[in-house]
Every structure is written in structure tokens, then in C-alpha cells.
């Protein structure tokens, strides 16, 4: 596979390490009420769709960017690649 890195252009997917569902960005607050349930759902449950999937890839043999790749899990077609940091900020994550 080829991942079109937003900063570096097309790179072989072999340069990357895969983590999984981009929802892992949405880490709950551990000090909240009901954090146990929230963390259980966050850490262990997945949508696992057959189709479009937003997922995290780390450019380990490259610039160390975490990317959010939108990829179809049936065809493997990649339609979008974003810096995970931008995605995280757009989700309201900060410090």
C-alpha cells in the first residue's frame, strides 16, 4: 500500500506502523465520574466497519508523524490522509 503523507508525499506503507481506529484519539478524562466504563468502551470496543475506516498510522521509518488515514477496509482504497495532530485539535483536544 501507499500512503500519501501530507508532508512527505507518497510513501510505502511498510515505513509505517499501524495502531488502529482513529477513535483512540478521543481518550476520556480519567478523573471523570464513570471513567471506568468510558475507558472500557474507549480501549476495548471498536466499530470495525467493512468500508470506510479512519485509522492511525505512525511514520516510524520516517518523520514520526502520526497520521489519520481514511481507508476502505474492503477495497483498501485510501481517500484521505491527515496529520493526527490536526485531527486531534479539530476534536477539541489541546493539553
Amino acid at each position, binding site marked *: 500500500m*501507499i500512503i500519501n503523507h501530507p508532508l512527505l508525499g507518497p510513501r510505502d506503507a511498510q515505513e509505517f506502523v499501524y495502531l488502529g481506529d482513529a477513535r483512540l484519539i478521543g*481518550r476520556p478524562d480519567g*478523573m471523570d465520574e464513570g471513567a471506568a466504563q468510558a475507558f*472500557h468502551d474507549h480501549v476495548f470496543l471498536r466499530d470495525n466497519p467493512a468500508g470506510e475506516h479512519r485509522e*492511525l498510522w505512525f511514520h*516510524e521509518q520516517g518523520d514520526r508523524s502520526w497520521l489519520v488515514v481514511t481507508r476502505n477496509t474492503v477495497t483498501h482504497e485510501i481517500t484521505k490522509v491527515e*496529520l493526527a*495532530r490536526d485531527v*486531534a485539535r479539530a476534536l477539541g483536544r489541546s*493539553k
Partner: protein
Amino acid sequence: MSQSNRIPGGLIDRSGTLSFTFDGRSYQGHPGDTLASGLLANGVRLMGRSFKYHRPRGPISAGSDEPNALVELRTGARQEPNTRATVAELFDGLSAQSQNRWPSLAFDALAINDRLSPFFAAGFYYKTFMWPAAFWEKVYEPIIRRAAGLGSLSRLPDPDVYDKGFLHCDILVIGAGPSGLAAALTAGRSGARVILADEDFRMGGRLTAETQGVGGLSGADWTAQALAELSGLPNVRLMTRTTVVGAFDHGIYGAVERVSDHVPVPAEGKPRQILWRIYARRAILAAGATERMIAFEDNDRPGIMLAGAVRAYANRWGVAAGRRVAVFTNNDDGLRTAADLRAKGLEIAAVIDSRKGEEVTGSAGRLGLRSIKVRDGSGRTRTVECDALAVSGGWNPNLHLTSHHRGRPVWDEAIAAFVPGPGGPAGLLPAGAAAGHLTTHGALKTGAKAAAAALADLGHKAAAFDLPEAEDAPVSITPKWHVPGKGRAWVDPQNDVTVKDVKLAHQEGFRSVEHLKRYTTLGMATDQGKAGNVLGLAVMAEMTGQSIPETGTTIYRPPYTPVAMGALAGRSREKDFKPTRLTPSHKWAAEQGAVFVEVGMWLRAQWFPKPGETHWRQSVDREVLATRASAGICDVTTLGKIDIQGKDAGAFLNRVYANTFATLPVGKVRYGLMLREDGIVMDDGTTARLAEDEWVMTTTTANAVPVFRHLEFCRQCLWPDMDVQLISTTEAWAQFSVAGPNARRLLEKVVDQDISDAAFPYMACANITVCGGLRARLFRISFSGELAYEIAVPTRYGDAMIRALMKAGEEFDAVAYGTEALGVMRVEKGHVAGNELNGQSTALNMGLGKMVSKKKDAIGMVLSQREGMVAKDGLRLVGVKPVDPSQPLTAGSHFIAMGKPATAAHDDGWLTSVVYSPHLGHSIALGYLKDGSARMGERLRTVNLLKKTEVEVEIVSPHFIDPEGERLRA
């Protein structure tokens, strides 16, 4: 008998003569021959035996689809089983042996199977060999296994070298027949970067095998002209002997170039083969088509061949498949074989055209065809003497790559074959015969058109391609799949799948294509169904009364043709299997005669034997005792090192470590415990605060990479606005542990600063200089339990540093110690390491439960508090010593209470790490024991049922030495 079947003409080089042997007999051929054409020229038709019935077999094809003529090529360590004689390029001295026969090819004892064939119908083995139960492994299966298999491996290491390479292009053209050449010319002339790859050693595809010309030239001449032009274009790369074997995601193709298979031994410095990974923006599949057989009784005798192959042997190789040849066809293409052979002066015994109601109903000849039985339209049967039969049942487009992404082909009634369907790999355009355009004109036209389409996609303007004149006769096929009859008619020749087997599968309900394949083994042979899949499907369709597409389709998986494992592995073998990382002191350690050990990718010194030491324990005991008595030095560079800087670094560490870090003063080091988000311990190590916003984290050797990746995840994905920067500096700093009561005195000779206990107390750290100005980092931390420091210098000074330290240590009799002594001292001190940090253990298990702060939201805190992970009687880290000090312990032994049986119900845990403590004079261990902290002083058994040993032990504190930590604060 010298080339008795060689006839004039062809593209071989008759000025050269090549000698070769088959089954020990010598023959001669010419450059340009394949092993098959060379043997056929010498009148040898019998080249192999079938898999199940051991039927005598000769080649049916002239290409990579060959199912029958498989041989063991070469001898010794270079022996290659299952090599298709039809693609093995002849070279002088070639040696080949027939395979899967005993004692000889002409007389094969297991041909008895053919006589017993009624008992060996499809799937018979599922219905028998069940009683008595133990007989399967002991009796039946060994017999089956010995009889099965095709060729054999030498069992010796492959002596050849394989390479891997990467290529990029705009357009990859797969196949250099008329459509591929037209595509390459169109694309090449337009300036696009083109790769033209062909599996053959001579480009041209069917143009090398046909007599019809192109644009007024012979096919071979037109090909030569096209290749001359292409080789003059700097943007075109021509690759012969290169098979594109797979279409992978996003325009990546795998291709194997057989660089040296046509020479006896690869030339100096040359690989045998190269695996190319080709990144193509567009690809054109111009792989041609494969002819198929018509099934009739005994249609598998040597001498019965595909009509196009007979033509190719005559036209390309100047070889007559027989002296009296009959033709059996259901389409006009088969008639060309008769015409071409006649023109060569060969006798045509009969032309049997099924469209006229004629058919071949049988054949005779034990080791090669002697005659066929023919039934004419009126039902009369006659015998026709002939030594070759050319059969054409139509052509199947080589659409394989279009189904590598599981796209299904579609049925084309006009040519009675499957053609590429939708859902093929993006950017792959089929053209020519591979797309179902079976005429030369059609191939040229669609090849050029596909190239034009690809160029347009890429924004190139297509150059003109004046379509040369070429034949364009319709295929005019009337499908004829099999000739009904009582005998066996082969569908998949290698695996001996017959029409009867397909019928039996139908009768027993195995009617879906997949069930048919799996039950009968249709399509599972080395040709992967090229010979029989469509035919088998057609027979099944006849049984079910449905059309072929209603019955099913058949798709193909990579590789297109079988690929040598060596090519896929490339250079990653033996010592080069994985990269080797050397520590900065490696050269010095090697000079000392160190024994090295693999630690992940690293090689580390395991111990340093001294003259007179004959057992590793002597060396390790000495290193431990010397360190504890005075001083020892160990290269600890392999530990992961991560520089962490920025205003928010402290806050960041507070979140990634379970314990508190933000409060750590400048100049201090703290032990940190890192959890995974599920609450299990991920790693441990120390982090030092060298300045207000400058921190250095260490990780375990094994987790250096994953921890860094995890921290980047936290930084970029969880807290993107934190002011934190990370960089891995594992390779940037050479780091040495200096341990022992004289460690300070030793270091004082090297460092430029005051490191007295007052100035540099336990857990201090600083940026310092050594040896009069070289920048360095010093940490007063201890893994051994001794007064100890870790000193880091830029890696390029690592070699000099170890030499300086050892020199400084001479007066203290300082020793170098390796990973074994390191392990002994850490167990004596009760520190956890890899065997305890096993990804299954909690902080509580390790006795570090109190380190997990619940006052802050750190990674893993929440889930570490789940009920199953905080059980009061859960596993706890304990120390273990044998009651009888002379008894050695074994890591991996399990704890069983005294007097209880060794069963899972009484399994109380296990020994994680065992060492011999020279300090204590006996074996000691760490272990995880159920409710361990409440069981100090208890006696238990540790059992090793694998060796049937057990040792009575006492549970003690894991801190075997200096439990109060006086030494390290000294």
C-alpha cells in the same frame, strides 16, 4: 538419435550446439531452445508422471502453464524440483532428472495406482482409513506421504544469492506480445516512463510462434523492429525473463526477474533472481491467453498437446511434435496448426473438427501416443495412426492479475471464455488476448488503445500509433468441452482429475465451484488451474444444467506462476536475516574475547572469559564478585534513551508515568513506572531532569521503540498543544554503568567535576564533562544494587570511553561485566526485568502497587483499578531460595504447595528468573506467587514437569542483598 524431430526454420541459433542430459542420457539442442523443445527435437516425449495415477506424461504446452513436463533441474544444492521443462532455457551442461517415479520414468512401480484408479476416485480418502483410529498416523498416512509430493529438495542451503529491487514507472506493460508491444510503443513514444516486462526470454509472445505477419513483416521481424525502437527510448525499460506475479494495493506489482537461470551458475556478483517491487501509476495487462484441452478418453498421453503449442514448437523452435500429426479442434485457430505443419512438410493424419460433428473418442500408446480413435458425424469410429495430436478447445484470456483483488471475471459467449470483469486492481487495464481480443489485429489495437487511455489519465498526450495490418479472423468457436465416454477423460492433468471425478462431486453434492475444487483437487496443481479450471467448471455446468457463469466463476490468487522462496527472501537470510546493532564498546569487547548474545537486534557482551575459565559460570561469578567487591563496568547503551524537552515536559511525564514526575527537582533522577492504557505495566526505567525543561528518559532495551512510538502518540494525538518535543537518542549516546564500592573513585579519575557523595548524591544527575572537556551525562543510579553510576558520552567516543574507564579501573582491579552478570546482580537486588515485565503483570503483581498515583489522570490509571487486577490474593513478586542450597532452580518451574498434587488446581505461580548467586553461594530466583507477600518464609515445591524435577524452596523477600539500600547510597 540426434535431433530426429528437428525441422527447418524457427528462431533458434543453429550455429551453436548445447549439450544437456535428461535422466543421465545426453542430448543436443541449440541456443534458443527450452528443455522441452530440446527433448522433443530429440524425439523424447515422455518427461514426467502424473501426481496420483503416475500416468506417463509429456508436455502439453510451450509455456508457463505447463502441468505435465516437470523435472528436477540441476544437481546438488542447486537442484530445483518441479521445474517446467517448457520454460527452462537450455544451456550447455544442463542436467535434468525426471521426478515422482520409481525406479525409472519408463517403468514406474506406482503406476499400479492407475490400474486401481476405481478405488481412488475423488475424495475416497475421506470415507476410509478411519479404523482402527491409531492406524492413520502409523500406517495409512506414512504410506500416503511417501507416495505423494512431486520433486525433491536437496536439503542443502541454497547457494545462490537473491536480490530485491524497487522500480517506479508511469506505465507498466505486462507481456510483450502484439498488444504489449503496441502499448509500449504508444506509451514510450509519448515520453512516459515505461516498463515492458515479459516472462519469456524472447519478447514477442505469440508473434514468435505464428506464421501470419504484421504490417508486411514476419511476426518476429516486426517484433525485432519494435524492440529496436523501444530499446532506443531512454524512458523505456525492457525486462525479459521477468514475470509479473502479483497485483497488490495502490499500483504495486511484484515481479521476478530470472537473471541467471539460463546459465549453469550465476556469474560472479550476480544474483540468481531479483524480486522487483514495481510502483506503477498505471499498468496494462497484455499477458495473452492460454489454450485449453478438450477432455476425451485417455487425452493425457505424451504426444497429445495443445494445438498452439504444436505450432509454436514448429514455428519458433523448428521442432516437429510428431511425424504424423492429427488435429482436434472446436475452432478455427486449431486449423492453423494443420496448415502450418503442412507448410513445413509434415504429414497431417487427420483434422477432426468438432463443429462438424466429429470427435476423438480415445487414444492408444503406453508411453507415447500411437493412435487415436475418431468418431465421425454419422457415428462411425475409425483408428487414426499418429504420434502427435494437436488439440484446441479454445483460449482462456490470462486475466489472472485482474482477479488478484478478488474481482470476478465475466463470461464472453463469443469466445466461450471468461474475460476480465469489474473490480480489478485500480489502474490495471487489460488489453489484447488477456482482455478477450484474440486476433493479432485486436491485440495491437487494444494494446495501443489501453496505452492511450492510461496516458490520458496521467495527463500525457498519446503519440501516434499507426496500426499495422494484421490478421483479424473471427474465432468462430463452438464450445466442445468433453467427449462423452466410458473411460477416464482428464480435466486437470497433473492432479489426475477426470470428468468422472467432476461427475462424482456433483453426485455427492459438491456443486459450488469451491466445493468442486476442494473435493476433487481441481486447480490445486502447480499450474493453479490454468489447464483445467474452466474445463472443470464447464463439465459441472453440464451436470447442473446451468450455464457456466451461473455455475460459478473462478478467480486466481498471486503468484501468477510459482516463485522461488529465495527470491521472496532476498538477502535476509543466515547472519543477514535481520540487521545487527553493535554497542559502542563492541570492538573493545571483541578484543577481550567477549562472548556475545543476541538481545533483540543488538549483540551484547554476555561475559568476558579469562584465561583458564572453562565454564561460563566461572566468568560470570568472577564478574559479579569483582563488581561487588570493587568495581565493574558494563555497556548499557542498548537501553532506550529519549530526550524530552519543552515547557510542558514535566506535565507530560506526569501523564505517561503512573507515578508523579512533575515535582522532580532539576539534577535528580526518578524511577518511573509506565502503564499501558489497560493498566498493565508497559515498561519501567529512570527519567532524569537535567534542566528546567530538559529531561532524559530511559526505557528497557526491548521496549525502546514501542515506548517512543507511544510517547509520540500521547504527544500528537492526545495532548497536541502541550509544549513537548521528543527525540530518540539511543544511538546518540554511549552509556556505561560503573558499579561497585570503588565506582566513585574510579570515575573521579575520568570526570572533570566533583562527584563526592555530598556533591552528587544517590539519584543525582548532571550534564558534565569528562577527560578534560568532553561533554557527558552522569546519573547516579543503580541496577546492581551497588554504589553505581551511568555515564554517557557521544557515541563516537564510546570506544575511547570504555578504554579510558578500564584503564582508570586498573588500580581497582575493575572488571568488565556482561549481560549475565548484570542479570545475576539485578536478581540479587530484586529488580524486575524482561521476564517479569511480560505484558501480563500489574504494578501490584510487581510489588509496586503504591507507585500508581490515583490523584492524577495518567495513562492506565483508571483501568489498572479493575477488580480482576487488584485482587488481594493475586500474584506477587517474591524471592525464592532452595531449602537445600546445593539444588539448582529452573526458571519456568511452577509453585505447588507442599503435599499437593502437581495439577492446575494447585498451581500457585512460577519462577520468572533464576540465577546462581555467587554472593550467596546458591541458586536464587524471582517468581510470581499467588498471595506471595503474605507467604514469606513458607516452604513450597517448585516443579519442572518437563524434566520431572522438583525442588523444595523457601519464599523470601526479592531483595537478596542490601535490602536497606545502604550500598547504593554509600
